[in-house]
């Protein structure tokens, strides 16, 4: 794999950029692999990359039904933060944040990680208490965070509606300076290119249609491109988790919901940070291209159709209008829906299953993008060692039987 650098850019400029090496191969599936990752989104590709780079497993493949990064990886609002309340999630997301901070260098691919800070607004006294508690918890866990007042918010974002007369007045916020955004497509492409250069086969247009077992041990996967033998299957398929689980006769504590996102027409730079609000339920940032990237909550019903309902669009826009009346005449360019796998406690499931050799990484719900590198890192450890890393040990499937839930629902900064 040729390294990207200022010199490779100059060299390729001489040939009018027509001779760039392909970023990854398109190999035919082999008969057998040491491990197979099902799902070529950010998390799956990151898992494959860390399996190859950290655990020396290079005879592995990533199977993707469509094209890599074509699912939720390319359908989210790209926010990265690690200011979660509970120790288990704070440590997991902070691991991810640390990986983000060196990711472009490690992958030799610019993922455009921009630490522009994340505000989580509070609109009620209870919001403020929760925010202060969360900021304090974050600081005890070594995660940056501060409480900011309405005046400080107005100074930093002059056009946000801080009027005390608004329906949901802004009373304060938490601010995580190291939070920010990253380019979602580049994350998938960067991990794919880096994994491919370590020998990982990335096989697109290859749908898994069955899981073969010998007793309680997996032996391979049936795919739309034939049977592939493998002793280890790591499933990272977000909204399709229950579909794959059913192939292995597992029941999951997961429900799939559409989650919508929006981008506006490009406008001149106006918003240089990320603003999220739990109470009015919306979040917004501005991409480097100039469009406002907007998201909100899930559609309330189970759904696998990658689109969303109109009343959710209306709800999202009214939330954004409440916070930013100045955006009222900005037109939305595009809207789309991704299928998110929602867990009862709004925390992921990353671990082993009762079936040997079958591992699941799912349940990220509405907030998986920020965890992409960390999720891949701990899941690679889990698949390679047949046991979870201490960072993801608490995120087991068994917690729904033992009752040891990690109750981030409501405790997390946003908008789940």
């Amino acid at each position, binding site marked *: 794999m040729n390294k990207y650098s200022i010199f490779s850019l100059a060299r390729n400029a001489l040939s009018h950029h027509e001779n760039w090496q392909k970023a990854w191969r398109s190999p035919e599936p082999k008969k057998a692999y040491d491990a197979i990752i099902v799902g070529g989104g950010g998390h799956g590709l990151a898992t494959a990359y860390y399996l190859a780079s950290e655990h020396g497993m290079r005879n592995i493949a990533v199977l993707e039904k469509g094209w890599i990064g074509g699912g939720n990886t390319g359908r989210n609002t790209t926010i990265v933060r690690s200011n979660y309340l509970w120790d288990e999630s704070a440590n997991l997301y902070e691991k991810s944040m640390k990986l983000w901070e060196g990711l472009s260098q490690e992958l030799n691919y610019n993922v455009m990680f921009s630490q522009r800070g994340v505000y989580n607004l509070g609109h009620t006294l209870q919001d403020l208490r929760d925010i202060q508690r969360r900021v304090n918890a974050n600081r005890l866990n070594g995660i940056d965070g501060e409480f900011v007042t309405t005046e400080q918010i107005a100074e930093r974002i002059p056009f946000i509606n801080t009027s005390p007369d608004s329906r949901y007045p802004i009373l304060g916020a938490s601010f995580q300076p190291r939070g920010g955004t990253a380019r979602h497509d580049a994350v998938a492409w960067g991990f794919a290119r880096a994994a491919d250069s370590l020998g990982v086969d990335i096989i697109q247009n290859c749908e898994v249609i069955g899981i073969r077992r010998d007793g309680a041990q997996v032996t391979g996967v049936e795919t739309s491109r034939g049977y592939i033998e493998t002793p280890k299957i790591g499933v990272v398929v977000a909204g*399709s988790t*229950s*579909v794959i689980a059913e192939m292995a006769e597992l*029941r*999951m*504590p*997961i*429900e*799939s919901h559409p989650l919508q996102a929006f981008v506006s027409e490009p406008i001149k730079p106006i918003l240089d940070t990320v603003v999220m609000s739990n109470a009015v339920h919306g979040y917004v940032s501005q991409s480097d291209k100039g469009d406002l990237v907007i998201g909100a909550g899930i559609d*309330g*019903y*189970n*759904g*696998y*159709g990658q689109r969303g*309902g*109109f*009343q959710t669009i209306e709800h999202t826009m009214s939330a954004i209008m409440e916070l930013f009346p100045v955006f009222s005449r900005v037109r939305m360019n595009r809207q789309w829906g991704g299928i998110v796998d929602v867990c*009862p406690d709004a925390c992921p499931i990353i671990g082993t299953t009762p079936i040997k050799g079958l591992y699941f990484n799912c349940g990220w719900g509405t907030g998986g993008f920020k965890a992409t590198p960390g999720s891949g890192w701990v899941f690679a450890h889990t698949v390679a060692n047949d046991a979870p890393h201490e960072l993801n040990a608490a995120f087991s499937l068994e917690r*729904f*039987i*033992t*009752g040891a839930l990690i109750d981030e629902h409501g405790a997390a900064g946003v908008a789940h």
Partner: protein
Amino acid sequence: MLLIPCPWCGERDESEFTCAGEAHIARPLDPDSLTDDEWGDYLFHRTNTKGWHREQWHHTAGCRRFFNVLRNTVTYEIKQVYKIGEFPQGEEQ
């Protein structure tokens, strides 16, 4: 937007309703006799069907009554609406 035929009020916009999750999950009559596995399954595990799904809806901004809907989770088509305690046509359980 879905157009949902409430068995009592007729067709109304989805925005009047709240989806109340998978239908036909009966509360165990004797919870103390359940194993942890069974109790966890009752509380948390869901069928999450891709295709025809039986679910409960609540007419929150209308008659405020619950009812069941047989809906396709891919096309979002509603095939049948039936009352609590009943089953879809042709299905016994």
